[in-house]
């Protein structure tokens, strides 16, 4: 029944990625408990192994454990996405050299395909990339190997949970597969959501082995082709390919929580304008244009006011011009503003994206074509200057007033790998 074992798929992910990035570049943090806070210094979203050992829990709001962390001498850091982004780029590029295809799945995980050697044993390969990544980046990775993505994900979980695995597990080459699949509870299987998991449990299906052996018709009746595919993958067939070039995004979102909730229209407008500038820049870097621009704002999930508003504008022709987009976003921000509510988060969404390379300009006259070219040149120049000098060398005046709503990043580490002014110092 199994497909040939010539190709294997591995899920490779970094352990404690954010904390490892910080520990690699800052000697003070080496062997010390480190936690990283979410945007706006909200919750704990990453822990170094030393912090795990102190039983500090993921997702804990910072204010609740502030005292305790202090007492335990835990290093607390805001999330530093310029550092993590750079380390992720390095990680993925290094991995590329050691596999056939790679699908970057998130900032710290990738599916890769690899041919099995004659003896079919991929452990030596996995051990060598593991030590290579550790030496090059100071980051420990876990390698889960299987016949397909679903089983590679499971193998990765097993590699983390089994003490003697040393961070590597090959599910396609194990003798007692049933025992291992039994250890994976149903809600931990890749592609099984909360609802599906509840339904399966009501049917008495508790783990991956039981799902693999479940009556096929029953799955198809409830979950359709998606469920069938999942079961086939659990059995070792390959249904989901490695996606080398992920389809271009359907939308681009830039949103942030506010440091303190805002009630003034000018603050909301300024925040949305700042996000709009970022979003248009993102679009241009991917050759995309939007013809549906949306803004939204909401109150805190934890507050008694539960208010959320959004507004959007459809355009007759798609654009990536910051000037045009700003004008629309400023108007839309007035539409969603309500003085009665304290907004804690706002954002812009660029929807209905099209590739600007293949853009068909509908009915446009000579003059507007000239204007388009002019604005495109201006945008390109601004992007180049911002790339050449640091970010926001050139920006729009609206962002220049004091930004009272700015996110809290009180414990931000330096851009040690991407900014020459912030590189580490050797003291001795």
């Amino acid at each position, binding site marked *: 029944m199994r497909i040939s074992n010539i190709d294997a798929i591995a899920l490779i992910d970094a352990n404690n990625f954010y904390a490892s990035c910080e520990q690699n*570049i800052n*000697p*003070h943090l*080496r*062997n010390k408990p480190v936690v990283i806070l979410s945007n706006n210094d909200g919750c704990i979203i990453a822990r170094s192994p030393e912090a795990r050992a102190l039983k500090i829990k993921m997702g804990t709001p910072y204010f609740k454990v502030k005292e305790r962390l202090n007492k335990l001498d835990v290093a607390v850091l805001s999330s530093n996405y310029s550092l993590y982004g750079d380390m992720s*780029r*390095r990680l993925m*590029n*290094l991995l590329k050299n050691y596999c056939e295809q790679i699908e970057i799945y998130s900032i710290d995980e990738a599916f890769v395909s690899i041919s099995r050697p004659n003896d079919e044993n991929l452990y030596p390969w996995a051990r060598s990339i593991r030590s*290579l990544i550790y*030496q*090059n*980046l*100071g980051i420990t990775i876990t390698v889960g190997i299987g016949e397909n993505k679903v089983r590679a994900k499971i193998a990765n979980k097993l590699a983390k949970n089994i003490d003697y695995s040393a961070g590597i597990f090959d599910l396609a080459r194990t003798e007692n597969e049933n025992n291992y699949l039994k250890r994976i509870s149903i809600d931990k299987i890749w592609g099984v959501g909360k609802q599906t998991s509840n339904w399966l449990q009501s049917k008495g299906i508790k783990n991956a082995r039981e799902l693999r052996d479940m009556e096929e018709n029953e799955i198809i009746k409830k979950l359709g082709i998606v469920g069938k595919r999942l079961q086939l993958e659990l059995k070792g067939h390959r249904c989901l390919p490695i996606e080398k070039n992920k389809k271009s995004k359907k939308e681009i979102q830039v949103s942030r929580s506010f440091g303190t909730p805002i009630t003034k229209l000018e603050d909301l407008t300024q925040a949305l304008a700042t996000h709009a500038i970022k979003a248009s820049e993102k679009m241009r870097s991917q050759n995309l244009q939007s013809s549906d621009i949306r803004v939204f704002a909401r109150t805190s999930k934890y507050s008694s006011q539960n208010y959320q508003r959004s507004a959007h504008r459809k355009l007759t022709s798609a654009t990536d011009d910051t000037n045009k987009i700003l004008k629309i976003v400023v108007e839309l921000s007035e539409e969603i503003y309500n003085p009665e509510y304290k907004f804690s988060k706002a954002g812009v969404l660029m929807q209905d994206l099209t590739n600007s390379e293949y853009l068909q300009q509908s009915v446009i006259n000579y003059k507007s074509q000239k204007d388009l070219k002019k604005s495109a040149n201006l945008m390109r120049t601004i992007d180049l200057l911002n790339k050449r000098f640091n970010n926001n060398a050139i920006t729009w005046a609206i962002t220049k007033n004091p930004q009272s709503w700015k996110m809290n990043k009180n414990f931000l580490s330096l851009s040690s*790998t991407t900014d*020459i002014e912030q*590189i*580490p*110092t*050797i*003291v*001795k």
Partner: protein
Amino acid sequence: MDSFDSTTKKFKIPLLTDSVSAGFPSPADDYTEENIDLNEHLISNPFSTFFLRVKGDSMINAGIKDKDLIIVDKSLTAKPGNIIIAMIDGEFTIKRLSIKNNELYLKAENHNYPDFRFKNHVDVQIWGVVIYSIHSYL
């Protein structure tokens, strides 16, 4: 001859990468190449290369001075004789990896600084190998 179009009796202006609106085209035009990119020449493993800044004169005899820019390749395995960056007691340290009486140690290139013996410390990690130092003379 090629640039003379007999049907329109007009000279076509040759297309150049540089804009030359009058006079003769630059004779160097056919030889234009990209600028020299130091990244390309100094860095062979860009994904494992990091930059650090020196403070102090502990490596003065090796020609590494205060404020120099240090390029470190973490993919290289340190060999005796290499200048290396180590993480020791919570700090970045720059030293020469040396060997004496079959024992590896870290040598400061300045008589005022002590050498570093591995056996006296618990928490040492050789972080990377220095491939270049860049000094500004201005």
